């Protein structure tokens, strides 16, 4: 399942609903929630996520397909927020279900690693000093490359 969310969503509610729909064979559910970080020295006051409608959904579907080909998953869910959001709000939610925990955990990590580096989203940060487009991180590319 893929959802591009234009408004705030509740990871807990999504996890509850995801688990509710799992088949009887599911033994483990992994999830990851990415939040807009606030505070700190960079002082982000807001974050805007831009995406490429159409291509974004298509790329996420391909990434999910890759995960299901690689691990035996009962189900998976990706929710990605777009538009302007505030510190503490969720940007992304990934959940995976499998009979055994190793597959669920690995697939969850894989999905977030590839979402970060292979799906068309761009982050614009607002700080007291103005706006800036977020630069890609080498650590994200390295994390994504582990699964190649």
């Amino acid at each position, binding site marked *: 399942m893929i959802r591009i969310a234009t408004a705030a969503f509740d990871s807990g509610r999504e996890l509850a609903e995801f688990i509710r729909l799992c088949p009887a064979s599911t033994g483990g559910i992994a999830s990851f929630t990415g939040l807009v970080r606030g505070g700190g020295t960079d002082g982000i006051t807001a974050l805007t996520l831009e*995406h*490429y409608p159409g291509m974004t959904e298509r790329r996420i579907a391909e990434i999910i397909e890759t995960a299901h080909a690689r691990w035996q998953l009962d189900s998976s869910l990706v929710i990605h927020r777009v538009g302007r959001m505030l510190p503490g709000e969720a940007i992304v939610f990934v959940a995976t279900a499998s009979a055994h925990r190793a597959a669920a955990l690995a697939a969850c990590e894989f999905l977030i690693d590839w979402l*970060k580096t292979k*799906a068309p*989203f761009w982050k614009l940060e607002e700080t007291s000093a103005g706006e800036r*487009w977020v630069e890609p991180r080498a650590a994200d590319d390295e994390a994504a490359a582990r699964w190649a």
Partner: protein
Amino acid sequence: MRLRYFAWLRTRIGTSAEELPLPAGVATVAGVLDWLAGRGAGYAAALDRRDVVRVAVNQEFAPLDHPVSDADEVALFPPVTGG
């Protein structure tokens, strides 16, 4: 050809999408970038550092030598930073 621009390529070029006829002799992604870079200061600024420009043709990532035709949707954007 339908052109789409995202993130700082969009803000530098000053529009998110436009329809332009593909000029004669332009047949690859690299050709499109060269052609657009000559269309004005905004385009030149956006395409200044080609190494950080990514391209999708018909919503699939495409390398510089990928062929393009006038019927294609070609999107230009920086490296992705989602998730």
